[in-house]
Structure formats: C-alpha cells, structure tokens
C-alpha cells in the first residue's frame, strides 16, 4: 500500500510536475482576472460579440447546439435580436456589479460550487492503466474482510399456518407429520405435498442467513445452525412469526473468502476506485498544504489580546 504523503509511482509524471502546477494556478488567476476585467481594461464597457451572444442564448434555451442557434440568430427579427442583446447586457452588467460588490463572498452556494468544480478538476475519470497482479493481491489480502461471503443454506420446509389453523393446532399437526416424513424418508421435492402454502418460498436454494431470517425469522436460522445437513432427516417443529415449520436442511456452507480468481473483476474495480480517490485526495491535500495557516483566537487566554490586535 502506498504510504500517505508519498507520491505514488503510478501517478502520471506530468501531474507531479511543478511546472504544471504553475500553469494551472496561472490559468486560474488569468481566468479570474478575465472575469473581473473582462473587456480590455475597461470594466465599464460591455462588448457583445456574436459568439458570446450565442453562448448566452444556449444557456437561456438550455440547449447546447451552437450551429442551430448560430442559424437561429440570423433568423431573428431586429427587435428580437435587440431583446436578446438587452438581456445579455443586463445579465453581464449585474453580474459584474455583483462581483465588484463582493457578493460572491460569503455565499455558501457559490463557495460550495467553486469547491465542487475544483474537486471535479482533480477527479480522474479515465480508466487507469492496467492493475498489476502483485498490487491486486496485496489489496485483496489487506481488504479480505470485505470479500467474505456469508454462510449459505439449502433447505425445504413444510409450513403450518398458525393464522389459519390456530397456533396450537398448527404445532400439533407439524409434530404429527414429522414422524411420517422421517419414517417414509420423504425427499426434498416431497415438501410440496404437505402442509400449507408458504408465505414466501417453498424451497430455499443457496440462500444467505439475512435472506432467510428476513423471510422466516431468527429462530429458524438458529435451528438451521444446529442440525446436521441430511437428505432424509426432517427436523422441527420450528416456530416462525407465521406458524410452525418442518425443515429438511440438505446443505450448509460456512462463510468463506473466495479465491481472488473468483472475484477478480470486483477486486480490481474496488482497487481502481480506491486508487482514484487516493489520487484526488493527495492532489487536494497538496493544494491545501500550499497554504500557510495562521490560527488565531482559539486559545481562551489570548482571546481578548487577539481581538484587540485584529482591530488594530
């Protein structure tokens, strides 16, 4: 595993290049400058170019087909075109004014949106290069707990519906039938011929604990853990929230960790995902660590002194 704080070898070298960082930061500054002083050096002049107008119209129409709007622009009447220009100018002027007044400051929606965009900038959505066998094994070993498959059971049951028969009667009927099923060695498929219609399933084939417990309750699961799997020995009666059951448990597989080969796709997907998140986190951490942090006013003793200093 990569140690935190160390640049991993698989990070593309260009992303580690300080020059790239310089260019990215420079680009951001340039763009910010462009926003504040968008029209040459005169913040009070708004130039409406054809491209800007089409781009604007695209957002208004919520459609992104430059060609279509390019053509549509020519088909507008003079009045319509003027209305569009007026709208553009209105938005641009008010936007600039808002920025100039600092209204983007202290607005949580704008703040979160900018942070989101920055996070997205560092989200690598390209499929990473192939994952090496060794790193995959290492990952699988470290996170093997995540891949343990729960115990599974295969059984059939004969159900006696307590709501329909009454609880006591259902239990008695089950008790009576148990001997018959075992004496006659009634097989798995024979369960269909006895008892009442089950609420959910007649047969449970390779089902997990959770699934069975959700259908038939914890008591039944506990019982299944105690009996020996058999193709001919029925056991019970076992109570569920719905009545009484006779059960033929034919197999029980304990919880197991599948071999890497069985679940390789899933492990690889998880590994890539983790790596992707790690890359992003590291890049964001680098940005954060580029800042000098000065914490003031947290120590109660100096609280007053600090606030005095700030006022000065």
């Amino acid at each position: 595993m990569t140690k935190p704080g160390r640049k991993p070898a698989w990070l593309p070298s260009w992303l580690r290049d300080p020059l790239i960082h310089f260019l990215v930061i420079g680009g951001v500054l340039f763009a910010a400058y462009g926003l504040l002083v968008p029209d040459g050096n005169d913040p009070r002049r708004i130039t409406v170019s054809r491209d800007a107008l089409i781009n604007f119209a695209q957002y208004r129409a919520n459609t992104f087909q430059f060609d279509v709007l390019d053509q549509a622009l020519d088909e507008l009447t003079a009045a319509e075109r003027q209305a569009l220009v007026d709208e553009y100018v209105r938005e641009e002027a008010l936007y600039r004014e808002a920025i100039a007044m600092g209204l983007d400051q202290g607005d949580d929606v704008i703040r979160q949106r900018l942070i989101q965009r920055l996070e997205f900038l560092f989200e690598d959505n390209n499929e990473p290069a192939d994952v090496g066998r060794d790193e995959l094994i290492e990952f699988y070993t470290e996170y093997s707990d995540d891949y343990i498959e729960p115990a599974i059971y295969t059984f059939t049951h004969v159900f006696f519906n307590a709501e329909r028969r009454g609880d006591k009667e259902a239990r008695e009927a089950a008790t009576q039938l148990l001997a018959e099923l075992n004496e006659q060695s009634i097989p798995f498929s024979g369960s269909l011929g006895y008892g009442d219609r089950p609420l959910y399933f007649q047969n449970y084939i390779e089902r997990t604990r959770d699934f069975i417990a959700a259908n038939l309750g914890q008591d039944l699961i506990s019982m299944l853990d105690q009996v020996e799997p058999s193709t001919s020995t029925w056991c019970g009666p076992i109570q569920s929230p719905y009545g009484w059951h006779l059960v033929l448990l034919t197999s029980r597989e304990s919880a197991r960790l599948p071999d890497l080969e069985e679940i390789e796709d899933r492990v690889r997907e998880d590994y890539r995902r983790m790596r992707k998140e790690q890359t992003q986190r590291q890049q964001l951490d680098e940005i954060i660590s580029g800042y000098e942090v000065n914490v003031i006013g947290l120590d109660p003793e100096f609280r007053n002194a600090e606030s005095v200093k700030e006022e000065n």
Partner: protein
Amino acid sequence: MMQIRKSWLLVSLTLVMCASSLPVAGQERNVYWGDTHVHTSYSRDAFSTGNVNTGPDTAYRFARGLPVVHPGIGSRVRLDRPLDFLVVADHTPFGNGAPVEGDQSTREYQTAAWSLYADAAERHNDPGTFTALIGWEWTYTPGGQHLHRVVFTPADAETAKQFLPASPASTGVRPEDLWNWLEATSDRLGIDFVAIPHNSNLSGGRMFEMVDSEGRPISAEYARTRMRWEPLVEVLQIKGTSETHPFFSPEDEFADFELGYQRDGNIIHTRGDTTAPDPADYVRTALLRGLGIEEEVGVNPYKLGLQGATDTHTTLSDTDEELFAGWLARLTGPANGPEALPVFGRVATWNSAAQGITGAWSTANTREALTAAFKRKEVYATSGPRMQLRMFGGFEFEAEDANARDIAAVGYGGGVPMGGDLAQAPSDTPVSLLIHAVKDPVGANLDRVQVIKGWLDEEGETHERIYDVAWAGQRTAVNGKVPPIGSTVDVARATYDNTIGSAELSTVWVDPDFDPDERAFYYVRVLEIPTPRYSTYDAVALGRDPAEFTGQPPAIQERAFSSPIWYTP
C-alpha cells in the same frame, strides 16, 4: 449487431407472451425491487440543496447495499436490503455539475457527461444480481407545471453513447416531441425506451388532458404513440401520491394519503403558487378518461401501469420511514425541518413522503427482462414496504383458487396478470380476480385488500367504486365498508407491533356489478396496518409532539397499487 439485439428482444418478448397464455411450469417470475428515479449532485436542484459531492457511483453503491456517506448529514448510511435495479435519472441537458471540464455549452461536454452515466451503469450492471438501467429525466416545467418524464433504455453503454439524451430544449417542449425523438432514436439504433411521466399531481391540470399539446381532441394516433412510449405512470413518489384526490374520490376514505404540499384542498407547487386539483392531475381520473377516449377514437391513451419511485435528490434511494435518507440533502434529518428551508420553493420537508418503489414481476434480473416487465405493465407500486402482490384476471377463477398451493400456476394458467387485458366475456360471465398479497417479510401486517373499479356506462359517464375484498380479523362490513382496523402505534415512542392484521390475504373476487357491455378497469390496493410516519420518528428524536410539531399525521397506512387489468366489451 444492433439488428441482432433488436430481434433478440423481440424473441424474448414473444416467449414471454406465449408463456403467459400457458400454464407456467418452471417459468417462474419473481418480484424484483427497484427505483427508477434517482438524482445525484450533478442535478442542479440537488446541488443547490446541499448535495454537492455524490455521483452515479454513489447511487449504485448505496442501492447495492454498500455503505456510503450521506451528502447532507455526513454520516455513514447503508440500505439494509439492497435494491435489485436502479435508474439514475439526472436532468438533461447536463448543464450543471457533472465532473467534466470544459464549456458546458458544447456538444463535447454533453457527450462526456453522458458517457459518465453510461460507464457507471456498465460498471455496476451485474446480470442476475443487480441491474443498472441507463436513463435520464426529460424535465419541462412551464410556469411550474410538472410535465416531467423519466426515460430509460435496456441498451448497454456502448449503444447508449451513440445518442445524446433528449431534453425539452433539444427535442422541443411538447411531450409529442419527446416521443418523436424516441421513435427516431429507436429506429436508428434498434433499441427500446420506456418513458414514465411523474408528479402529475403537480402538473397544474396538464398531464392527462382531454386534448393534445395543440389543444386538439386526442386522436387515435396520439393515443397509440403515447402508449407506445409511456405505458406507465409513477403513482407514488416523494413529492406526493398521484393515485387520486379526496376532491375526486369523496367516497374513498383512504384517498387522503401523502398528497404532497397542500393547503385548503389546493395544491401548492414548487414555486409557491397554488392550483385546485384537476382531473388531469391524478391517475384514477386519467384511467377513467382513457375509457371515454377509447370509446370515442378507438384507442386508450391512458392505459397506464402503476409504478413507484423516489425522485430523491440525495443520490440515496430509500423509503424506510425509520431511516429515511431524505429528499433534499440539506433538509435530511430530524433537526433540518421546515424552518431550515430558504431554498427550492416552499415545499417543506415533512410534507414530502418517504415513498416510491416498484415491484416488477420478471423472469430474470436483467436489463432486457425488467424492461419487458415494465412494457407489459406487470409491475406495481408501493409506498416503500416490499409486500408481494399478485393479481390475475379471468372469467373462470373459483373461490378455492385462493387457497391453491401455487397461485402463479393457477393465475397464469387461467387468466392474465396485472397490466393485461380481458375482452368479450364468454356468455356474459363476470370478471373474476385472483389476488394474493403477502406482507413485507420485515414489515407490518396487512389490513385489507381492495379492488378499485372504474367503468364507462352507456351514457358515456364514468364511475368508480371501491370494494373491500379481503381483510384481517373478524370485521363485518357496514354499508359495504369494512371498519378501520385500529392501531398499535405508540406515537410517543414511535413504535408499532404486529398484534393486529394478517401476514397474508388471498381471495377470488367476482365482480358483482359486472356489465359485459361496459368498458372497465380493475386495480388492487393493499393497505398495511398503521405504522409511524418518518416525521414521527423525527419529532420523537427531537423530544417534540409529532402531530403538533410536524403538522403531519403521526401514523400512516402504507400501501401497494397493482397495475390495472382492463375489460373491453
């Protein structure tokens, strides 16, 4: 390649249709659970309400039962029972928020954003275990009226990347424009689509009109095209129930259920204006209108299957009252009640409902099989609980069929499942319905099963009637209505127990008012016993009085709606 895919789909549909007319042996359909309507932070309205960092991957991971971090409250959350299928349906065009750099107004940006959705779906689609259907939301809201559609396709990512998902701006704003786009794209790529209208309750009288978008009476062609692409409606979702309104169903004592944000019987829209309920807003009235239009023009434009979905904007599909993951990220959790809502209209949190999920009777958990189940309307809606509901219609079911060991074999053998059609009653034999409802294995018991019938009489008037057909306990109907079941809800502690109600209700119901010459539809409503509403859990957590503090009923009767079966003379 596309041709092969298309013909394969046709073959599989044919097989399914054959199967439904024969006794089913070994061709078992199972119910699969899913949500067709989930928004991530890439949707503008999700972002501006506090969901800033979760995308399709988070939606799928949560739906598949993996722990994720809640975008609003920051804690780790996990769905205790994973879903079987999911549609991530963010608003198009993707003008806001997808993690793609560049100018959002370019086709390149849109294409790259769309690829993110397609690729995420492909990564998580695991036939047999979990189905990720590729989709989006076509969102047109003139003057606040919701004319929204979720669209999904069974196509894989490679094929889906050959189109850019339609938006009202790219197709035109009329639903007809969307259908034309679906038709053209379907023809070009040989793939299918399902479009599902939702929030008809907020459509301001526009969703199920008597006229088309140009104000002309609905024609046979309009009706056929609409049904080709929109065979279903999202009847239950977080922003309210669209089944019916007490204004239209005054005799229905269960009509007042999670109606969304209302005041004095009027509907309050997301922008704050109000309208009176309109017959075009509700599904039951639409089903009734459909019968009349079919009588006039020969085709029913509103032959709608019923399904449920959340429309959550938290990325996390959850309908559990106790652990509800919320509608809008910032407003999730007990402490973030109505006062904390300066944004996104005036729809206060506790007016929204923890509801909307679909049960689909499908031969397999795959994109193709599930889409086929949606297209034949063999699906049903619930407000959250996963109760199992079967309904078959025929002319020969007998009382003892309700006790059959294998209800499905009897049902498919002697009738049609929900979503199907019956016609020309033999010797004027009345329609009989075979119904089987089982409680959610980990949920509340059932109160009753009702049949809701709508019909068109000889004068062209429509009518509705509700029949209690099976119920728990020893209650006797008074004036044709079974009295309320009572309640075990302890409001102060936000608990209930299953000492009342039944785990299972099954019956064969023969229509006592059947007229072989009248068009009709029948659907089933299953009611649970009362259980605490999510607002009650919130209020108890805050140490406040639930009814007084939240302004909501402390307990609700969760429910399921089957897709209808139609009878045509």
